[in-house]
């Protein structure tokens, strides 16, 4: 029998009957698992000791309820908007809402451009676009529509902000508010990259046949149309954490990230903007609500959409450095990201800090 997993050993520490009869028998006879169980118990007991008594105490519930009611009466409960009700979703999307925002922005831009709803894309502003979890999982799989060629950007770490600025030509701003910003900082320089997607009916048919599903109907006037997205260069300043932080469960996640990059641009041949937009929103995986959101952008060629997953993330627009910015975050307050564009540079400030602190840090960046 296989050795017990770490997770099962932890559960067994709390409840020996969490394991099956076979697993308990294995544990009883396996020196290696018993040693691992000993390590699990040692760490669990330390945590139990540290937490012991820290939350004990009596709380008067009814006065607390009355206090809250007084806030309702004073309008505090309705003074600001909040996100819609949380939904049942998969774990990492919920927990990583803040991180997901800029990543999804790129995904959506690339998906949108590649699938074809922007012919010439050079955003000068940002705006939130509301997605459901179903929308995200339903974004078109590009391999089912044609071929993609990616020119990966170079990426390397440099030793100073000046070096990062010299390598990219970007100003590489540092926040003036430093009380909550770790002193330790690393700069990651990212070069220019591009991705070209070509709608290809024959490739789409082949992909559909392999997957055992119906091929998308690519209009003849779009067959062979290409969209190229160019991005970079950019700089990501990582405050806190460590260079080896790659594990989600580790203790080394950064406290704050400040990203700067030239705005992405896109160009196309063989199709008009209206044709590509019509094709994208007519795809079965695009919900009517998402199609309406895409249509409602109004000026898609000049707006960078910031995806906001309804119920999972909150979103609000603010004015920052004299332009419109989007504040987005996890609905439970886990973290916040502020995204805006000015003078052709897209900036992102994100961190596992209070929303007001992240906004303060973003607003403290000196104007270039």
């Amino acid at each position, binding site marked *: 029998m296989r050795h017990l*997993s*770490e*997770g*099962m*050993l*932890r*559960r067994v520490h*709390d409840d020996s009957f*969490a394991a099956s009869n076979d697993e308990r028998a294995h544990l009883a006879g396996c020196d290696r698992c018993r040693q691992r169980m000993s390590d699990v118990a040692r*760490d*669990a007991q*330390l*945590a*139990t000791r*540290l*937490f*012991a*008594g*820290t*939350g*004990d*105490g009596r*709380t008067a*519930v009814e006065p*607390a*309820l009355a206090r*809250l009611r007084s806030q*309702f009466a004073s309008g505090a*409960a*309705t003074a*600001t*908007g*909040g*996100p*819609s*009700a*949380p939904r*049942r*979703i*998969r*774990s990492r999307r919920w*927990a990583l809402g803040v991180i997901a925002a800029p990543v999804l922005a790129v995904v959506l831009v690339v998906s949108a451009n590649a699938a074809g709803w922007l012919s010439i894309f050079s955003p000068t502003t940002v705006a*939130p*676009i*509301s997605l459901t979890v179903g929308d995200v999982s339903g974004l078109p799989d590009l391999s089912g529509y044609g071929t993609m060629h990616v020119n990966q950007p170079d990426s390397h770490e440099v030793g100073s902000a000046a070096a990062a600025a010299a390598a990219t030509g970007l100003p590489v701003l540092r926040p003036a508010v430093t009380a*909550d910003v770790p002193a330790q900082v690393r700069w990651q320089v990212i070069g220019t990259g591009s991705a070209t997607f070509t709608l290809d009916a024959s490739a789409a048919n082949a992909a559909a046949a392999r997957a055992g599903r119906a091929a998308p109907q690519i209009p003849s006037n779009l067959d062979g149309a290409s969209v190229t997205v160019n991005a970079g260069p950019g700089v990501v300043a990582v405050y806190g954490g460590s260079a080896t932080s790659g594990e989600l*469960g*580790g*203790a080394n*996640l950064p406290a704050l990230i400040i990203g700067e990059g030239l705005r992405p641009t896109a160009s196309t041949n063989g199709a008009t903007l209206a044709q590509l937009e019509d094709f994208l929103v007519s795809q079965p995986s695009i919900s009517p609500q998402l199609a309406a*959101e895409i249509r409602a*952008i*109004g000026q898609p060629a000049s707006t960078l959409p910031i995806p*906001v997953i309804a119920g999972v993330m909150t*979103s*609000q627009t603010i004015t920052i450095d004299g332009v*419109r910015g989007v504040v987005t975050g996890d609905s*439970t*307050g886990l973290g916040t990201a502020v995204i805006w564009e000015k003078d052709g540079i897209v900036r992102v400030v994100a961190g*596992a800090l209070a929303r007001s602190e992240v906004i303060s840090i973003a607003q403290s960046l000196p104007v270039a």
Partner: protein
Amino acid sequence: MNGEAVWRMTVPPTPLAATDHAFDRLFRAEYERVVGIAARVLGDRAQAEDVAQDAFLALHRRDCSDQPWAGGWVCAAAAHGALNVLRGDRRRHRRERLAAVPAPAADPAAAAEQADDGRVLRAALQRLSPRVATVLVLRHSGLSYAEVASAMNVRQGDVGTMLRRAESALRKEVDRATSQ
């Protein structure tokens, strides 16, 4: 898309009367536990009550008190709120000195040891990632594996692994701090 003010996903606040019953029932059932979660992070019961109030206020705005996951959601919101306060409080060292020991022990030596443990714990919670700290706080606040799974929106079968990794990370943080 006008992009102005709060985005359209905002649910209009529901009249209080329509949600009174479910909200009050949830508040009375969960308030002490929610305060306890925040207190485990902050070591300060008055601050913990403020965090709990904010968490319930946020829940009320969402008009979802009658949902089966509402209790877990408000627990997670309290944990995140308290961790944010802990990380953002520039006066935490002063607070550490002034904070009352939550559960006074008859033995002064035991009380001192408990206060030391509290400082060590809070220093570690500041350094751990929010997700790691959250699973530790929720489980060691007495939430069951199923409740932790609901609060963090993960599968129940994943909680053991998350907890194991979190406790291992906590030990490393404590070892690192005590070796300096």
